[in-house]
């Protein structure tokens, strides 16, 4: 099976390539990336990418697919349907399922569900501690055998400093990064939004920036002590950005990610007790948003990851204090990231770097590039197409987006995994 993608602009940050190129795919693998009219043999399938961007399939290293245990929120199937519609060809899913992914059997189950869905690649992230309880190390080696790509107690900050130290040491044996949700549980206790004037006015309990800062500072100290690989998930504060910048300058093995909602929205999105603006860490102030953008611009923050966190309507249409934390993100991430390009924060290649080769390298995956010989995981998108987000039309089983009704620019038209079309916009529209 040969596919030719012609007429488009190829952006492959891993190879510092951003130019008009045609792409030849053969048997699921990139065969050639060549200047236009280089006389590529006619393929079994030809995709006209005129006016479009052809890039490596996006990689989201932070999603919640909710299976097993919370299939009413999302399944591996619906989550990967959302992923490919958003241009993602690989996702790494967090361990807070039920049962928790803290052993090889659950890891294997998730991978089997992903094979059955046969859409995006799914890489489970194993729990750091048994049951996410923050007490004893999970069966990390057993999960490595079943294919985990990182370890994380995401959602349950590891308050036991000694456990965190041992986890960093132990995981270094497998070259596994530890993705950390940095929120001091004592400082954040009961908090439901950013601490500050808005929380005071709304009468909601706040979470101070310091809750993130103290944990980032602690874990950087532990990375220095152990040499373990530390990945700071969903950075939300200017103080954390400064600490990570300093750690990187020191040469420590620290990486970081930011979510589209944390670089797009401020705490003001909570006004009116909008539970779709409730997430952990919370949306912060404008100064924090500016700081995470600067972190992206200067490379302090390596990755854009969605923290796609589907929740049922019944868990959001409740009192703000009682609403579930989190928002879906897979289908809005690319156009929100393109806003950074339009604002001049990042060039288009640098923006795509944070969504392709950077997460691939952190997770040790051979994807996120269009190098000849690489698996043909590709996204083709129109960077100028305007569309309106309609929550009810999202492919995710849950519709908890704070961007409902937003006009966004940039639309995914084709997504290919291993040279197979797993999403095509026109076709998707016909089915609707």
């Amino acid at each position, binding site marked *: 099976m040969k596919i030719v993608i012609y007429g488009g602009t190829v952006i492959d940050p891993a190879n510092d390539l951003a130019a008009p190129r045609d792409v030849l795919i053969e048997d699921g693998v990139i065969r050639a990336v060549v200047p236009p009219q280089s006389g590529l043999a006619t393929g079994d399938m030809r995709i006209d990418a005129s006016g479009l961007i052809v890039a490596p399939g996006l990689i989201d290293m932070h999603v919640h697919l909710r299976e097993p245990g919370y299939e009413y929120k999302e399944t591996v199937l619906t989550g990967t349907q959302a992923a490919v519609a958003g241009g993602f060809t690989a996702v790494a899913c967090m361990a807070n399922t039920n049962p928790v992914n803290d052993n090889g059997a659950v890891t294997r189950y998730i991978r089997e569900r992903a094979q059955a869905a046969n859409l995006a690649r799914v890489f489970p992230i194993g729990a750091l501690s048994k049951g996410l309880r923050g007490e004893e190390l999970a069966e990390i080696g057993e999960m490595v055998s079943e294919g985990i790509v990182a370890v994380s107690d995401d959602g349950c900050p590891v308050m036991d400093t000694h456990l965190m130290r041992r986890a960093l040491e132990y995981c270094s044996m497998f070259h596994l990064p530890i993705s950390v949700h940095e929120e001091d549980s004592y400082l954040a206790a009961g908090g439901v939004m950013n601490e*500050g*004037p808005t929380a*005071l*006015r*709304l*009468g*909601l*309990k706040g979470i101070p920036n310091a809750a993130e800062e103290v944990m980032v500072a602690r874990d950087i100290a532990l990375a220095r002590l152990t040499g373990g690989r530390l990945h700071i998930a969903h950075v939300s504060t200017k103080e954390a950005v400064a600490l990570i910048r300093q750690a990187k300058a020191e040469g420590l093995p620290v990486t970081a990610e930011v979510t589209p909602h944390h670089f797009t929205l401020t705490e003001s999105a909570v006004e*009116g*007790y909008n539970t779709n603006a409730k997430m952990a860490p919370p949306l912060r102030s404008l100064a924090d948003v500016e700081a995470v953008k600067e972190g992206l611009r200067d490379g302090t923050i390596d990755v854009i990851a969605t923290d796609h966190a589907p929740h049922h309507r*019944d868990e959001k*249409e*409740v*009192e*703000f*204090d*009682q609403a579930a934390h989190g928002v879906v993100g897979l289908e809005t991430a690319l156009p929100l990231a393109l806003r950074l390009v339009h604002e001049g924060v990042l060039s288009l290649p640098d923006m795509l770097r944070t969504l392709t080769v950077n997460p691939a390298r952190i997770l040790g995956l051979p994807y996120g590039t269009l190098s000849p010989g690489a698996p043909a995981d590709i996204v083709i998108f129109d960077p100028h197409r305007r569309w309106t987000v309609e929550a009810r039309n999202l492919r995710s089983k849950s519709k908890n987006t704070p961007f409902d009704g937003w006009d966004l620019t940039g639309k995914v038209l084709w997504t290919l995994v291993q040279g197979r079309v797993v999403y095509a916009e026109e076709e998707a529209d016909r089915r609707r």
Partner: protein
Amino acid sequence: MFHRRHFLGIEGLTKDELLFLLSTAESFREISEREVKKVPTLRGKTIINLFYEPSTRTRTSFEIAAKRLSADAINITAAASSVAKGETLLDTARNLVAMRPAALVVRHPCSGAPHLLARLVDCPVINAGDGMHEHPTQALLDMMTIRAYKGEIAGLTVAIVGDLLHSRVARSNVLALTTLGAQVRLVGPPTLLPPEFRLWGVEVCTDLRRGLAGVDVVMALRLQRERQARNFLPSIEEYARHFCITPDALAAAKDDVLIMHPGPMNRGVEIDSQVADGPYSVILEQVTNGVAVRMALLYLLATQEREATEEQAEVGLHAPRRHAGALA
């Protein structure tokens, strides 16, 4: 004038709206002085008090207000309702509204709960206190009480003393007082007095005597005993030593200082009995005015509802209800 469908908070109300609400409330006060304390204004209408927190004063005040307007008042408390069976707030409210009340009065421990109902339930909602957010009828009755003694609110200096962080009474009063032109001073320990309050155009002060210097009005706030357990305070006794409003602490206040408290009081903790029962205390006056304020709001919102329903009937909505009306 006041044309809002719901009464959710003082935030966002204009000075004119506040003054209109106060003068309406003042006009209702006389009814409670009559021999027969009842007018037919809301006859045939039902007011539901949906209370998810214990309350004696506010719930009784709303109930009496409804009854003096001839409305049928129904009280539902969390313990007695289907909340115990796991029903959500929204479902409970939708079921109650299906029985066609003219207004829903909501008290809830979560900030924003009445706002959720106002958005998703088809009925006027009155906020009777939501979490740490607002207690707007309390602020109105406090303004009414101050006006009765001081005339204008503009130009007064008012100290609010105690647990500002957790107080919905304080938030609503700060908004009302500043909108009406008073100077506000917030006094309390730093653990219970977030500095962001300065953005509201008020002074913050951690010294009681300095905070009370020259003030026209002192509002004491109730100190919840559980604050000690969460390490906001070393002990209730130590709080009292620093912040209890005693005759001595009031020495620097104006001679005719008004003493207010939203109740229920912890005597000897936030307020000394000599002060609470003294000649400048208007604490019971506040309670009396509460009925008038709530009568005014029920009148304004419950009669507005009738007009809204008629409009809907005209465009063909709620046809079965129009039919029922025709039979009556």
